[in-house]
């Protein structure tokens, strides 16, 4: 049958099982939005306050559900407002299809009103871009976009459709999605070699990253940990890969990682990385990192091999596939001495001393975790509160901790929380933010209210850009340039103004009371937790340094 470009867009979405999209309309997108109006019984379009919020929502939706996130925008400023969100998804390998509209093709290149070369702007932050100015190219571009976004190492793609294409007609038939690129076959000798290394190691360690979450391989990972008695450390992106209650889960590794994790990396004789990319926040000093270990790197993306740290064995593979295949080759083992040493380091972990007169970040986050249970999804912004969330929330399951790891985007959290809640309406979603970050995205409260998404925002209000403030304290002689905000925002009132409920908590009792209300609420709730600006994120290994330079208090 013959369909318009706009209908083709909607039909291809349906072909890919898309029922929820995020976005913001405008002149160039009118035809597509007109069609979304007609498809509203099958495709829910969430209108955000700002296109950046829509991209973070599509991203959060993808992180929580494992599906491809979809976001729409108009031309010009609509398209440029997507950029931070696309870059955020790109850095964390989140599958996303962005569908932008552009001006009529005959106006392209003439600096027409709201014309922007968005396929050029987004080259370095997408896996692929498609500029569609002929109707016959539209369907293939859309189908390829979904395939590319979800294949191999996932990531965002962008399609830019000129307005005339959105009304032009073309022949169309519904089809199944294109098959994804096949996952690489693992050479037998690589598997044998890795298995031999594991079987001979005395101090083996698993270093787990976001790739494991993307591959949904938690069960397989735990099976390996248990069978061969191997401790694991995880990156920010892999919080919840295995429950924090597992004694061999040594916790976060890297700059703000646990003493146990960083020591274990330093002392291990074998490190196996699973979908982790040895970033500068983990391998702070790439030459000394895991200095005693043979390193096996497993990643779906060949270009990650040897990028930051030289490894001994490379294995380009899907993580789940690798774990499934290696498990039978690995001997049951006990590394009593190593086990006790590593686990011993975790128990020595001292309870962070709070600043007297204030709730400590640890108390707050543990209280929040206990109040919402292990199925809750957490989305964070960026700063100290993000690191505390990584350290102190009780991460028990994968796909439950949504945070901008690679780009570190302040303002990510609220959008991501909205996306997660759209994906899982019956799951409690908690947005953990800071006073700086919240001012970047609190506009999305209107979205949460309109769609009746009772997201709980826990605002860790230290009245400063805490993470930057901490560095100024440590490395800039206490010259607090532009980090002491002293804003007069009354969060409780602002919450009410948006149609949310607002609480202010200065004690754990007040926090517990507010949380008890929040979990029952059918509107979004903000809980402002007053904390001291002098709280630090610790431990800390300064950039370029090693575990020997770790600052613990």
């Amino acid at each position, binding site marked *: 049958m013959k369909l318009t470009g706009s209908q083709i867009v909607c039909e291809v979405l349906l072909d890919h099982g898309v029922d929820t999209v995020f976005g913001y309309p405008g002149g160039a997108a009118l035809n597509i939005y007109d069609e979304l109006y007609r498809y509203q019984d099958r495709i829910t379009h969430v209108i955000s306050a700002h296109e950046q919020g829509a991209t973070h929502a599509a991203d959060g939706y993808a992180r929580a559900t494992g599906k491809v996130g979809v976001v729409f925008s108009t031309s010009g400023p609509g398209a440029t407002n997507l950029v931070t969100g696309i870059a955020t998804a790109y850095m964390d390998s989140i599958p996303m299809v962005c569908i932008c509209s552009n001006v009529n093709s005959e106006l392209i290149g003439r600096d027409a009103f709201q014309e922007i070369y968005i*396929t*050029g702007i987004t*080259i*370095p932050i997408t*896996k*692929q*871009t498609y*500029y569609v100015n002929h109707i016959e190219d539209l369907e293939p571009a859309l189908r390829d976009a979904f395939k*590319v976004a979800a294949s191999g190492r996932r990531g965002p793609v962008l399609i830019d459709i000129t307005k005339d294409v959105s009304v032009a007609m073309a022949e169309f038939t519904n089809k199944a999605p294109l098959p994804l690129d096949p996952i690489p076959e693992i050479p037998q000798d690589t598997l044998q070699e890795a298995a031999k290394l594991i079987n001979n190691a005395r101090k083996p360690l698993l270093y787990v990253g976001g790739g494991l979450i993307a591959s949904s391989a938690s069960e397989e990972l735990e099976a390996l940990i248990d069978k061969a008695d191997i401790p694991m450390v995880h990156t920010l992106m892999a919080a919840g890969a295995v429950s924090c209650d597992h004694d061999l889960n040594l916790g976060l590794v890297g700059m703000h990682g646990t003493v146990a994790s960083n020591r274990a990396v330093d002392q291990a004789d074998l490190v196996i990385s699973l979908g982790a990319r040895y970033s500068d926040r983990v391998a702070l000093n*790439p*030459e000394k990192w895991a200095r005693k270990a043979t390193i096996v790197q497993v990643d779906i*993306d*060949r*270009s990650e*091999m*040897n*990028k930051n740290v*030289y490894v001994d064995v490379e294995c380009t593979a899907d993580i789940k596939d690798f774990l499934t295949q290696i498990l039978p080759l690995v001997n049951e083992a006990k590394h009593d001495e190593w086990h006790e040493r590593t686990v011993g380091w975790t128990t020595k972990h001292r309870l962070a001393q709070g600043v007297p007169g204030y709730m400590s970040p640890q108390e707050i986050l543990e209280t929040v975790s206990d109040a919402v249970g292990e199925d809750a999804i957490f989305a964070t912004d960026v700063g100290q509160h993000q690191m505390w969330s990584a350290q102190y929330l009780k991460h028990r399951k994968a796909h439950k901790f949504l945070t901008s790891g690679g780009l570190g985007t302040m303002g990510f959290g609220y959008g991501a929380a909205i996306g997660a809640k759209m994906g899982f309406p019956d799951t409690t979603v908690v947005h953990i933010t800071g006073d700086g970050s919240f001012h970047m995205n609190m506009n999305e409260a209107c979205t949460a209210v309109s769609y009746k998404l009772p997201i709980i925002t826990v605002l860790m209000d230290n009245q400063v850009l805490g993470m930057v403030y901490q560095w100024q304290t440590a490395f800039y002689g206490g010259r607090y340039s532009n980090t002491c905000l002293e804003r007069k925002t009354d969060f409780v009132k602002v919450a009410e103004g948006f149609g949310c409920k607002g609480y202010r908590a200065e004690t754990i009792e007040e926090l517990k009371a507010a949380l008890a209300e929040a979990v029952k609420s059918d509107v979004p709730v903000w809980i402002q937790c007053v904390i001291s600006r002098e709280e630090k994120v610790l431990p800390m290994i300064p950039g370029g340094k090693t575990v020997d330079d770790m600052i613990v208090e």
Partner: protein
Amino acid sequence: MKKEELKRHIIVILALNQVGALARIISVFGRRGFNIETITASPSNYPGLTRITIIITATDSAMDQVLAQVEKVELVKKVFTPGENTLYRELLLLKINAKGEDRERAMSVINVYRGRVVDLTSESMVIEVTGSPQKIGGFIDIMNEFDVVEICRTGATGIEVPGRTFDII
């Protein structure tokens, strides 16, 4: 990490001939901090595929990394570094101001390099030379004795002598 020496590397890429393909491929080099010395692009014998030849100076390990990154670009169908046994050619157009005796001296150099004079005025001459990048470099060195007003070279393209066949798509 050992200190590695910088070397010249030649990369051949076969990519879909689409709007923005070249920009995306080049962006990979810029993004990873490589300066491209020369680049040529032209249609290949595979319909719809452009053959791009790029020369960069980099360490071996940086080179491996950039190759892996280029391979990852969706539009790229094949990337390789040609073997030892490869013929490289480039084209030079060079303009000098020369009259009288200078002109005769220039002609003798041009003849040695099997160049051709493709334009001649009473003041100036435009010379065309093809050959390996080294030969072109040598020719330019010598011609610098004259009043050189303009130089343009295409950048190298290359082909392996025992033909390589590709398994594309």
